[in-house]
């Protein structure tokens, strides 16, 4: 076209970023890659191809890792770990800083290679992904520097197996590698088979800066390699980002292995627009929410919930805006949407949309490239929550929409999902926005914006979107553990005997404590509790899955506890302590009788002290304001987990129960406690104290029975948000396995003992809370 013609048409033309440097780097590497193990690349094989999804061109051939190769990578990481840890935070900081610097120096090369391999627009790779990658390494260089001073009681987990997805290949690598390395871990990382190239470039960079051998190991291949890592006995922790289905499989596969696990999974994040919003900005926000990275974003604002009164007008503006989106060559600096990452993903999206004709489908007329994995921006309106596309993650540029009438209904619809990753709220009313944010089941909430990320802000989900946080102080928990040697916990069995003798006192009938009432067990069975000599001390009910059901229902209806003030919760914990003190002698005697010995008095005193500790913490376990580069505040809010089922320790029947209950209550959770199996009578005595201490009905529920029998139904219950186990029965694996049903958080002892005389309140408070990051940009 001549200048004169363009003057009339005012078209954009093309503005392609040159791939020359990135292609030259591939050629330098021989266009073939092995794995990066122990500081060197292994001999490449032609196992599979890495293609540019926009053109179908082969970029390089890659090697599918075998088990011996994975073994070698793990061995290298294992060998390097203790030295890396001993290097100290400041020493590791130097390396992380060098990585950040190097990633900055080669920023454009990384961005272009990412676009070639993944199909995302160069603008996004250049302006979003790579700056965040750099920021993540800088930030965690700082965390390494501060670790020795700020986290004196924590240490590295060891070797971390990290499995990352194809939607943000180098960014997810950064999210995984930077905190792991900062805390003194070494890693074996597997990039997604569609998008391994930037990880291999990163390996090259590790080599360039002289990172000690074995600290970072990268193995390539498909899910089979992921399974080898997941199952590997010499790996201490698995960190996975990807689909909920695979996350569930990993949860099941690692159950009982003692591996730490964090999962960052799928989402169907609500995008709520109230009628007082800046409508044009909310429409524009959707471009960042659902059309960013072709919608292949786990936290994409994919579910538009819009106030009924403005829906038509909003949809009209949105359709007009979608008509302006430009699809095409991802290397073109003037396009908004590139290619999906792989033909398989394109088929998945096409199939899902074709199979679900419900609603009104809209796609703007747009210039679609004739070949390549392109999918047009799509809006589906007139949907109801019951429609499948309102529930299932599409992972493509497809927005579904439904309307609400009131703020309460908006919350209800937003939370009507198995997922809970992110949420967006648009309103110009600060009262409304800040009221809604805490009510949403999500790990991240954006107010008047979408898809904001930073290394200083925790990211991660609730419900089936996974558990654990990446970024910020909260993210470090996932790569550290308390210092100290772990001792095995001896099984504590109930005392045996002929169970024929009993004392002559008036018969008492301990019951289950559910919803603030003493309740007989659904089974109708009781079991005798004997002392050391075999004498019957009493009978306790044998709880079954139905009692768990009833207890959870009671806990569900006590939701108000989570909204009560921290001051009130503290007062109630103090009051429990006060009432416990009044019956100290009696309970001490009971402990002595059940456990044998004379530890009762000390245990009661420690229990009172524990209640005071968590009463103290109730209004002091505070969130943070993260130092994100934005005019505004990113709040890291501590929210209750919800309903926690806990198997109390067998060996400290009163102190253990209180050590579990008190932090959970202090943070606003409701609990279903299963009492010490050999010494359940302390729990049944204790509920009388709860009855007199103004604890709301349902906030604390106490069951007695077999830990072994109750573990699976508890962990599988979909309305329980977390399960803890300190039982001496071997139920850790069973709990982790069964928890995969709804991916609830688990905290189990894996057969390790705990010293109950120490509160370890940081561990308990962290387990009793979820960190919700609320982004509040401001400015007038």
């Amino acid at each position: 076209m001549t200048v004169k013609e363009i003057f009339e048409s005012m078209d954009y033309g093309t503005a392609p970023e040159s791939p020359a440097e990135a292609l030259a780097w591939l050629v330098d590497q021989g266009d073939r890659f092995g794995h990066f193990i122990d500081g060197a690349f292994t001999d490449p094989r032609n196992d599979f191809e890495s293609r540019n999804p926009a053109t179908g061109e082969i970029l390089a051939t890659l090697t599918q890792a075998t088990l011996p190769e994975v073994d070698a990578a793990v061995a290298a990481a294992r060998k390097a770990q203790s030295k890396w840890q001993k290097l100290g935070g400041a020493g590791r900081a130097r390396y992380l800083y060098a990585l950040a610097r190097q990633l900055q120096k080669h920023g454009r090369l990384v961005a272009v290679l990412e676009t070639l391999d993944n199909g995302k627009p160069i603008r996004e790779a250049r302006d979003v992904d790579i700056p965040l990658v750099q920021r993540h390494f800088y930030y965690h260089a700082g965390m390494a520097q501060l670790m020795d001073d700020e986290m004196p009681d924590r240490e590295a987990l060891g070797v971390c197996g990290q499995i990352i997805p194809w939607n943000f290949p180098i960014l997810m690598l950064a999210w995984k590698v930077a905190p792991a390395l900062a805390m003194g871990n070494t890693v074996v990382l597997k990039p997604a088979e569609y998008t391994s190239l930037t990880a291999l470039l990163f390996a090259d960079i590790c080599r360039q800066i002289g990172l000690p051998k074995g600290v970072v190991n990268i193995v390539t291949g498909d899910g089979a390699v992921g399974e080898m890592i997941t199952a590997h006995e010499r790996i201490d922790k698995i960190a996975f980002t990807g689909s909920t289905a695979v996350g569930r499989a990993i949860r099941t596969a690692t159950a009982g292995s003692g591996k730490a696990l964090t999962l960052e999974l799928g989402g169907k994040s609500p995008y709520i627009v109230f009628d007082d919003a800046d409508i044009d900005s909310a429409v524009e926000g959707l471009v960042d929410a659902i059309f960013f990275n072709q919608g292949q974003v786990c936290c994409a604002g994919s579910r538009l919930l819009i106030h009924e009164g403005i829906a038509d007008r909003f949809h009209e503006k949105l359709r007009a805006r979608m008509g302006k989106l430009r699809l095409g060559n991802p290397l073109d600096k003037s396009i908004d949407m590139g290619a999906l990452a792989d033909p398989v993903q394109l088929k998945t999206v096409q199939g899902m949309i074709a199979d679900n004709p419900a609603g009104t489908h809209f796609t703007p007329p747009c210039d679609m490239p004739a070949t390549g994995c392109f999918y047009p921006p799509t809006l589906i309106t007139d949907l109801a929550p019951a429609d499948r596309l309102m529930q299932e993650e599409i992972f493509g540029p497809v927005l579904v929409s439904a309307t609400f009438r009131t703020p309460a209904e908006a919350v209800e619809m937003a939370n009507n999902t198995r997922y809970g990753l992110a949420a967006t709220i648009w309103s110009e009313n600060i009262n409304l926005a800040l009221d809604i944010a805490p009510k949403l089941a999500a790990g991240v909430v954006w107010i008047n914006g979408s898809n904001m990320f930073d290394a200083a802000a925790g990211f991660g989900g609730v419900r089936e979107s996974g558990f654990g946080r990446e970024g910020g102080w909260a993210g470090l928990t996932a790569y550290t553990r308390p210092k100290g040697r772990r001792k095995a916990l001896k099984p504590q069995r109930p005392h045996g005997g002929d169970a024929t003798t009993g004392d002559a006192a008036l018969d008492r009938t301990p019951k289950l404590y559910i919803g603030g009432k003493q309740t007989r067990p659904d089974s109708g069975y009781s079991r005798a509790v004997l002392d050391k000599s075999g004498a019957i001390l009493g009978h306790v009910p044998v709880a079954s899955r139905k009692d768990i059901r009833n207890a959870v229902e009671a806990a569900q209806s006590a939701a108000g506890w989570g909204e009560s003030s921290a001051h009130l919760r503290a007062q109630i914990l103090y009051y429990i302590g006060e009432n416990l003190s009044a019956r100290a002698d009696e309970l001490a005697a009971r402990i002595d009788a059940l456990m044998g010995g004379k530890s009762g008095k000390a245990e009661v005193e420690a229990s009172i002290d524990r209640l005071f500790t968590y009463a103290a913490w109730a209004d002091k376990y505070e969130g943070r304001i993260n130092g994100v580069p934005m005019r505004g505040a990113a709040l890291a809010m501590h929210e209750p987990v919800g309903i926690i089922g806990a198997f109390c320790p067998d060996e400290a029947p009163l102190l253990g129960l209180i050590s579990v209950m008190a932090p959970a209550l202090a943070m606003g959770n409701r609990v279903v406690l299963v009492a010490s199996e050999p010494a359940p009578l302390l729990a049944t005595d204790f509920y009388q104290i709860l009855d007199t201490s103004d604890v709301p009905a349902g906030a604390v529920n106490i069951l007695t029975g077999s830990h072994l029998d109750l573990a699976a139904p508890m962990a599988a219950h979909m309305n329980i948000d977390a399960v803890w186990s300190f039982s001496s029965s071997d139920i850790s694996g069973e709990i982790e396995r069964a928890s995969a049903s709804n991916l609830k958080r688990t905290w189990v002892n894996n057969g390790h003992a705990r010293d109950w005389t120490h509160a370890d309140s940081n561990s308990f408070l962290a387990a009793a809370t979820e960190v919700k990051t609320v982004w509040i940009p401001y400015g007038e």
Partner: protein
Amino acid sequence: MTQKTAKTAPDSCLGSTPMHLPQTVEPRNPGMDLDLDWVMRAQANTSAIERRAAQLGTRRSVKKEYQAAWLLKAVTCIDLTTLSGDDTAGRVRRLCAKARQPLRPDLLEALDMQGLTTGAVCVYHEMIAPAVAALEGTGIPVAAVSTGFPAGLSPFDLRVKEIEASVAAGAKEIDIVISRRHVLTGNWQALYDEMRAFRAACGAAHVKAILATGELGSLRNVARASLVCMMAGADFIKTSTGKESVNATLPVSLVMIRAIREYHERSGARVGYKPAGGISKAKDALVYLSMIKEELGDRWLSPDLFRFGASSLLGDIERQIEHHITGAYSAAYRHPMG
């Protein structure tokens, strides 16, 4: 000004009827009754608008001949402006010569774009006569700032009379300033009435409403003032006088053009947009043009609906155009001054 350019104008690529005035293409914005419900519903979220504004320059990039064509388009949208206390007839004639021949003839010839002119020349009332004389036969309109520019605090009847005098003197476009106090106190009715009166006084001349956005306190006020002025019949809305400490910015522009879009959607009338002050780089001009293209559409990429109020922008564009043609970076002294 040379005779040569005046002669080439009629057979220029732009044709003999320059598309400067809205009424030459479509009906003017007739205005409507003040709709306060609509005005008060208007919102502008500053952070979100800033984010969008920051992305504008990164989402679109025009290169090579496209960039040259876009920069030429920008030239046709410039209201070449002098608004200084020391303006003289001679100074204004010099500016008008630049308006008629904004780029060196050899450059225009190389691009086959002979006859290209700026959108208008913008001056104070006293300079209208020399400007009209200097532009005679070119079709380039003279715009006059009016109504007690820049503060707009002279007596109301004098402000109306100033418009009438400028129209009588031959100004085809009147850039009025609104009373900022009406916006700051939320007196939308007063703003509407004032704008109505100004529009009436303009008669056939078309009227640009200068909001002085740097003095309105918030983007929400900018959005609401934009709507009120359009309801009262403004042909253009314009950011600034160039005399405020903050002049045209991308966020302010986004708010105003979104208001224009909404007004068009509801009323069918197209109102023009003029950012003024602070736009001095060719690159900035490209971002503005792509913003207009993205948010309003191609129809607005024309001097009848879009103008830059700028004095030094043209100089940078001249150098970029020469670079496009020669491949070598240019120097300011190689281009005739205005």
